[in-house]
């Protein structure tokens, strides 16, 4: 009987091909459930899930919360503002306290890369926390696995099987956890990945990951089936990486002039929130080629699949039976 090979979803890196296939097929079934008049299933009715958001988020937090509620789990929410963090509590203490309240799964968003990996390493030492499952909802500039999974799912829905397809990630690769997770996942699925960005927004040595590098958006657009326009992460830009938003838009933004020159128009993805007029022209964000809102819809189904597969596993493979 198939099941995920990992106990937590900390990043794409640890997923096997079979894991990815299982996540995609389970997501498809949950996507079908979401089209029914009654969108709720009782699968995780005996689970409690804590959403710990140490960093701001709108769509990811709402998407996880909705996914949890659609699975009938009990949900508690935590955000850094107004918490005991300001009193100097450590991350490990905060999480252990929450898990001591009989919480089964943690959805973690944190500004430090590797925050989820740190918890997965240390929690087994604590009796109240050893069985907990952790889902990374974005850790600094490291990974954002559920975003990559929902992007891949959306691409599959639009393009069919992904092996051999060409997908470009455009923009702030340096600060983007979405870019890294996307790159890893799409490559595992047989996609030719191209990165298009100014040299100042590309991490050093990134070409070693086997991706094509481009500094010309016009050339990139002619080659690809889909283009994922990443957001300029102003909150992470502590030095000037490009002269001005206007200049960035002119050189690396997807604008109408550039779009109308294209003979074969790719589909457009964006992980949100969109800076209209910077990386993407608002008219294109709303155009027929844009699947940005489909991504949002698919996100709930994909997160349901992740929670469903890990939530069952948390007791199934430890031999603890409650009924």
């Amino acid at each position, binding site marked *: 009987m198939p099941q995920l090979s990992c106990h937590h979803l900390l990043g794409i890196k640890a997923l096997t091909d079979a894991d990815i296939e299982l996540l995609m097929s389970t997501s498809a079934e949950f996507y079908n459930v979401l089209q029914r008049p009654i969108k709720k299933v009782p699968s995780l009715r005996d689970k409690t899930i804590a959403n710990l958001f140490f960093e701001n988020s709108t769509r990811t937090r709402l998407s996880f919360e909705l996914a949890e509620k659609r699975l009938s789990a009990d949900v508690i929410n935590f955000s850094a503002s107004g918490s005991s963090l300001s009193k100097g509590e450590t991350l490990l203490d905060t999480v252990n306290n929450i898990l001591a309240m009989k919480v089964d799964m943690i959805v973690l968003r944190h500004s430090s890369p590797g925050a989820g990996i740190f918890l997965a390493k240390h929690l087994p030492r604590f009796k109240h926390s050893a069985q907990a499952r952790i889902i990374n909802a974005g850790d600094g500039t490291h990974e954002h696995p559920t975003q990559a999974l929902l992007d891949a799912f959306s691409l599959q829905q639009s393009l069919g099987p992904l092996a051999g397809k060409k997908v470009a990630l455009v923009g702030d690769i340096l600060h983007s956890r979405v870019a890294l997770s996307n790159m890893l996942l799409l490559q595992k699925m047989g996609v030719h990945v191209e990165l298009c960005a100014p040299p100042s927004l590309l991490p050093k040595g990134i070409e070693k990951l086997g991706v094509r590098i481009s500094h010309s958006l016009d050339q990139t657009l002619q080659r690809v089936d889909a283009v994922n326009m990443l957001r300029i992460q102003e909150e992470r830009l502590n030095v000037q990486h490009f002269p001005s938003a206007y200049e960035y838009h002119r050189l690396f933004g997807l604008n109408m002039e550039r779009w109308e020159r294209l003979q074969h128009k790719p589909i457009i993805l964006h992980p949100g929130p969109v800076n209209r007029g910077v990386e993407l022209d608002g008219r294109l964000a709303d155009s027929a080629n844009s699947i940005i809102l489909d991504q949002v819809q698919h996100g709930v189904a994909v997160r349901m699949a992740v929670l469903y597969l890990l939530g069952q596993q948390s007791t*199934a493979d430890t031999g603890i039976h409650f009924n």
Partner: protein
Amino acid sequence: MNTASTSEPYAHAEAMRQRIHRLSLMLAEMHQDQSPLVLLGIQPRGVYLAQRLQAAWKSHMPTASLDFGVLDPTFYRDDFNQSKVLIPEATQLSFSLENRRVVLVDDVLFTGRTIRAALDAVHTFGRPEWIKLLVLVERRFARQLPIHPDFYGWSVDAFEGQKVRVHWAEHHGNDAIWIENKS
């Protein structure tokens, strides 16, 4: 009294064909033009039976329509966190079940728990006028819930340690019903 055997099939292909034909005639008796029946095959093996019933239906009711769907009750099961991770299969149902007459189809009725989950799953597609249950093999005295079939091909007494398996040509290469001792 039907007795269990493990050396040869409990029923062969021709007997299965005849019983499925008879079941399809029973369905035909319930047909009303203004409200076509909905045949819902339960994943995985109820789907084969539902497809056979649909084919038999077409042969003797060529002008009467029958709506067909495939239902996977996995998300509604009551045995999460037991011994294994439950992986869903496809549900294919492109229409509402509001006020429809629904026949749930499965190969073997044993404890009744799959049917209970299927009843929950059906209701996420609307409130049917009624739901009936059709199975090829009913295992007597094995129910853990108050669920009983409206139509069945065989009613068998199998011991608790035995397994009733229906083999389908589409999947196993030939049609047969086996009663096996669990290894």
